[in-house]
């Protein structure tokens, strides 16, 4: 376990380093001059040069990189070019918003997927199973933005049960915050739940064929105890894998949903920053996402080893 932690931490540092290099390089090869963007087309060469010097943009790239990384290590993500706010404070503002959306859409997805997956696997070939299949297929085929618009149209505009867009922070008003976030969470969660349902169904069907399931019945267990006590835990691993990957994706990429529901999250921030060549913000946000992906994978590995004792966390390579 300790060697696993050490190895993973080492790996994490290497990956973060590589990501930082790539992010930095990508941002710098993008066409567009931040100084020009800030000052506008009419700016004189003089003032442009002065601003570049102030922002450190006249230094060689290598120097710029090390200055940036050095600051990063001290928790200083730099300042936004656009409005001179600290990038870190921008991130701290936006991350909880996206995190809330992600967690809520996962809650929606899991609440649907686990029962639907179990029912369709244990009642294979019945109407229940077919309904779950139809749901899953339509869920996968519905783009979240379309579902989002549909949900707004039905539940916000026509029925008026939910606010059509906007965001209230959890610290302000928990109930209202959940209320505002519910429609976007459903829009994102339905697709995920469809994927997870199919995954759980197929993995559960496979496990239900195992010899130890027959042993369970031979012990005198009822179907309920066999499914929940013996089959579910063995079949949940692929579901966890997909969930983990999706969780990381959601953290960085709920752009469209955030746009539709006008949620001031990380996705929105990232898009705006790219459009305005706000390099420090882009770099900061991408670094956060890279960290999130690594951290989630790390967590999933630990979850695996808890779920399945045959999976050993070792320091060596596989």
């Amino acid at each position, binding site marked *: 376990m300790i060697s696993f932690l050490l190895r993973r931490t080492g790996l994490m540092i290497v990956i973060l380093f590589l990501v930082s290099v790539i992010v930095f390089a990508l941002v710098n090869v993008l066409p567009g001059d931040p100084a020009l963007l800030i000052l506008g087309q009419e700016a004189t060469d003089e003032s442009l040069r002065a601003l570049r010097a102030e922002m450190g943009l006249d230094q060689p790239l290598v120097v710029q990189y090390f200055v940036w990384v050095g600051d990063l290590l001290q928790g200083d993500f730099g300042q936004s070019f656009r409005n001179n706010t600290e990038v870190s404070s921008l991130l701290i503002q936006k991350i909880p918003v996206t995190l809330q959306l992600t967690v809520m859409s996962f809650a929606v997805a899991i609440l649907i997927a686990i029962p639907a997956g179990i029912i369709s696997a244990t009642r294979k070939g019945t109407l229940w199973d077919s309904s779950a299949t139809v749901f899953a297929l339509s869920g996968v085929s519905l783009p979240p933005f379309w579902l989002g618009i549909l949900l707004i149209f039905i539940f916000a505009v026509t029925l008026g049960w939910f606010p059509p867009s906007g965001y209230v922070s959890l610290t302000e008003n928990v109930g209202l915050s959940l209320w505002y976030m519910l429609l976007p969470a459903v829009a994102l969660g339905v697709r995920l739940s469809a994927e997870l349902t199919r995954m759980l169904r197929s993995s559960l069907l496979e496990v239900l064929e195992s*010899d130890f399931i027959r042993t369970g*019945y031979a*012990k005198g267990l009822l179907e309920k105890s066999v499914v929940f006590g013996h089959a579910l835990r063995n079949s949940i691993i692929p579901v966890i894998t997909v969930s983990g990957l999706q969780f990381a994706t959601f953290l960085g990429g709920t752009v469209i949903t955030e746009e539709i529901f006008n949620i001031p999250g990380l996705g929105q921030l990232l898009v705006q920053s790219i459009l305005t060549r706000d390099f420090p913000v882009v770099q900061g946000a991408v670094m956060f996402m890279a960290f999130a992906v690594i951290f989630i994978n790390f967590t999933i590995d630990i979850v695996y080893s808890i779920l399945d004792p045959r999976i050993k966390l070792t320091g060596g390579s596989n």
Partner: protein
Amino acid sequence: MGEKMDAQLKVEDLHVGFKQKKSSVNILNGVSFQVYKGETLCIVGESGCGKSLTSLSIMGLLPKQGEVQGGKIEFEGENLVQKNMKQMSRLRGNDLSMIFQEPMTSLNPVHTVGKQVAEVVRTHRQVGKKEAYSRALEMFELVGIPSPAERLHNYPHELSGGMRQRVMIAMALACNPKLLIADEPTTALDVTIQAQILELLNDIKAERQMSIMMITHDLGVVSEVADRVLVMYAGEVIECANNRQLFNNPQHPYTQGLIASIPKLKEEKDELPIIEGSVPSPEKMPKGCRFSTRCPFAKQECLTDSPPLQEAEEHTVRCWMHTDRWEEMTPWKGVDEDGREATEQDLIRS
């Protein structure tokens, strides 16, 4: 020896088959036998003869498409065929236990073996977690698992095949079953472990007055553990006798063939005798005796008329040879009544 004892399990005219899209295929065709209290009955036969299906029918664990099409399975005076899932689950693991062929995969990999044994106890007895575990420990000692207290907390993958089969046996015996069904319990194990497991089963049987129904295709195992032996062929019982009788004086040509094909150390032969051909598939069952297509003694009528199961020299045997009719039957000509050569189609029941 069996005659004086009471039957623990009585299977009567059992028909089992598989549902298919429109029709259904019959696999077990009128299987009848008894397991007496305190005896070991071995069921032998080739793969596909229906021996495992018989045991799964008794446990009520037939695969989804499987169905009991007729007959009775009487256990403790109750017909198991009529019981529903819930009633059966009260018996399974309790009075009626089963161990399987594959110790490597029959245990759940994500739970400790102790938990899995304790689970049976908690399912059938009103006991707490602690008591269930101490019962599991007791069972581990009984089945000869070394340092049992530590092993309780092991996961299946940390144990060897032989140890896992012992865990399976511990699990099956935890609630003192009256009948233990062992479906090829030693097939997956190497020979030394095989002998240990068989000895263990024998000891426990003697100690607990339990009946064992053992399914196997290994005649060596049979001769070691069986009180009585039941030989099955293509879904029918073809011979039943006590252990010594069966091996020294087999009556059915199939049984004779089986016993002749056991290699013997004393004789030096270049080739072992074999039974020609293979088991007919369920769709192509012969109309008459199911063994007739492979039987070296078959007469003309054997192909068309089914022989009855009857008593012969302390055996029950299903063969025309042991009936009065045998002398009158027409020798095999390979042709039918009209002088036409019999085609395969004629021999298959429609």
